[in-house]
């Protein structure tokens, strides 16, 4: 034990001599943020823009590079460095918060950051994103929403608001859609022009596909930890429940509607019509033509189209409903937030946000990546997206869903991710690993309730 003692001594020694280098160097209270002046024409500013869309090779990165180049051309005094979040997750969007956090810890956060709506509470209250209303004025923010010609869809305008103030400008946006393989539908003797509209129909169609073609039936990408909870929320809302009470003070994801959703999904797995897949495997499998249907974010449509090529035909339908109820989709996607600590950079950051949410930028993003344009009017603009919308039959159900759209509710408090992960893990455990839905959700809800601010009381 002599070694142990020695090592312990060494550790103690070091402990005694080391200063605590982390933390406590507070940047001061951010209770009030003063209005930032306009940039002078010759004032050179460089800012950093962090977006998870840079994580992937291909269309996403190319599109964003194109947009930034255009921005720099328009604002020669501002230079933008784009970066992806730190980290290695298969889905860079899951790395955004931890990446921002370590950069905040190091004292040098990026200036503009693209963050998911699920992180809104944490972003505003813990990470202290700057209130744009204070920074550039409420009028300016609203003017941007109104746009030059085509305003934001009403349901989208307030997604980045917290207690009446706008912190983030909603940027990219998608809704859950039921994509299906028309060829497999035909082979299974189903009508490819009449996709299932309810979950019961999905199950039957999936069974037909499985039986007739040997391929997998349907996959719902809402039921794993990796999928986050946006479309699980949609499923629960469609079944008439909520995962968290409306005032966000109480978790309700173990209530009967949620249990019913999980049970329905579990049944599909148990009967073999829904394969046990990870998000990535399912997307790939569908793109390859080995899967009949998939409930997926419209952001991935590009991949499906590419996978389909001329081998099979992609069909798209609105999110299915539960018998006798209206389907209520929620939005996935992200808003742009400002974290600059320097006034000039704050102004430059706003300029970038304005540019990236302009009509022109949305035209590029929608055509190149497939995200929904938040300025929905653009699809009727002959100079804008009208042509694209016409060529793109998958857009219509997506736009239609906006009518019933409800926002993706972020979990409260500092431990929101643990709450969310705990909930989704329980769902995953029930659906794919065969645990009892009610028990699994209940125990997860009990554990997670303790993590709510104030212990969920």
């Amino acid at each position: 034990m002599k070694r142990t003692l020695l090592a312990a001594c060494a550790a103690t020694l070091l402990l005694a001599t080391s200063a605590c280098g982390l933390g406590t160097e507070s940047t001061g209270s951010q209770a009030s943020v003063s209005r930032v002046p306009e940039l002078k024409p010759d004032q050179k500013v460089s800012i950093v823009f962090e977006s998870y869309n840079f994580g992937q090779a291909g269309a996403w990165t190319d599109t964003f590079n194109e947009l930034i180049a255009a921005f720099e051309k328009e604002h020669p005094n501002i230079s933008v460095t784009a970066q992806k979040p730190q980290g290695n997750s298969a889905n860079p969007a899951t790395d955004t918060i931890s990446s921002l956090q370590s950069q905040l810890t190091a004292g040098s956060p990026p200036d503009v950051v693209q963050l998911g709506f699920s992180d809104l509470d944490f972003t505003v209250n813990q990470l202290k994103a700057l209130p744009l209303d204070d920074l550039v004025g409420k009028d300016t923010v609203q003017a941007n929403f109104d746009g030059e010609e085509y305003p934001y869809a009403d349901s989208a305008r307030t997604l980045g608001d917290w207690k009446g103030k706008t912190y983030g400008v909603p940027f990219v946006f998608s809704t859950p859609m039921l994509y299906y393989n028309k060829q497999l539908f035909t082979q299974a003797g189903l009508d490819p022009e009449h996709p299932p509209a309810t979950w019961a129909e999905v199950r039957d169609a999936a069974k037909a596909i499985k039986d007739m073609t040997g391929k997998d039936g349907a996959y719902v990408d809402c039921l794993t930890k990796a999928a986050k909870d946006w479309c699980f929320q949609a499923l629960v809302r469609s079944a008439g429940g909520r995962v968290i009470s409306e005032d966000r003070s109480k978790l309700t994801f173990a209530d009967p509607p949620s249990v019913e959703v999980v049970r329905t999904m579990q049944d599909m797995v148990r009967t073999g019509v829904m394969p046990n897949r990870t998000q990535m495997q399912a997307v790939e499998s569908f793109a390859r033509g080995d899967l009949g249907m998939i409930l997926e974010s419209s952001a991935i449509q590009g991949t499906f189209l590419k996978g389909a090529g001329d081998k099979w035909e992609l069909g798209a339908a609105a999110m299915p409903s539960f018998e006798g109820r209206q389907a209520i989709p929620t939005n996935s996607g992200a808003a742009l937030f400002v974290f600059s600590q320097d006034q000039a950079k704050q102004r430059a950051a706003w300029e970038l946000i304005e540019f990236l949410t302009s009509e022109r930028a949305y035209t590029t993003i929608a055509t190149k990546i497939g995200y929904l344009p938040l300025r929905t009017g653009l699809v009727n603009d002959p100079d804008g997206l009208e042509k694209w919308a016409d060529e793109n039959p998958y857009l219509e159900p997506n736009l239609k869903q906006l009518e019933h759209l409800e926002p993706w509710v972020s979990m409260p408090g500092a431990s929101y991710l643990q709450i969310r992960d705990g909930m989704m893990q329980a769902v995953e455990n029930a659906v794919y690993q065969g645990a009892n839905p009610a028990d699994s959700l209940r125990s997860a809800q009990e554990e997670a309730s303790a993590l709510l601010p104030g212990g969920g009381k």
Partner: protein
Amino acid sequence: MTTDEVAGESSRGRRLGGHVVLGVLSLACVFPIYWLYATSLRAPQDVYSLSVLPWPLSTASYTEAFAKNDVLGMLFNTGVIAVLSALGQLLVALLAAYAFAAWRFPLQRLLYLMFVGTWLVPFQATMLPNYVLLSRLGLLETLAGVIIPTLCSALGVLLLREHLNGFPKELLDAARMDGRSSWSTLWTVVVPALRPALAALGILLAISAWNEYFWPAMVLQRSNAVVQLGLRSFMGTEGNDWGPLMATAGLACLPVFVLYLVLQRHIVNAFVRSGLK
């Protein structure tokens, strides 16, 4: 291994048995690597094919990999990191191992334990403080930032110390008597005699630096500056882009394989002769 020379019963049968078991195991070890290259050489529409031989051969995946990422730039960056990091680790470890092997001094044991102790420190616990420190030093987004924190390799120190302990002390004494300072003894006597071990260790360190991706991902956030990160860019929620992914993976492994094939004997020998015991 002289025992094998002893006239043996049924030695042909034994040998055959050895070949069978080793053959199967080798195959199991190499098959994934083969599959990697085979997939990378398939035509895009054949990527999902399971034929053992990729036919027709196609370089389309490589073309795509090069088009989407600056693969050559990545390979170059990774190479620079691997070489500098290996050389730096080698130097630091050599000096430290020399101190441990050539002198007896107070606190020696404690200092030695400090090196061993690094194996017990979870890397996940030191990562964030190191990141913050790098940021204060202004070394983020630099290759130096990737290299410097890795410069002290405990494995290197322990391995070289082991080699140096086997090194005849009288040689060190002789060099002192012959008029060398300890510094010049190190370079004129110790290093030449230790060359095979240094080369082997250097190669191992370079390989592991080449394969490292966690820390580079943290420091080099703004670019896919190392090839392992380039790999990640073909993996994602939309599914993996298997062709270019395998092509990039193949390219990422290629320099290491070539290095190993050329120097295989030296690496294995350096290990076998002394080193790890």
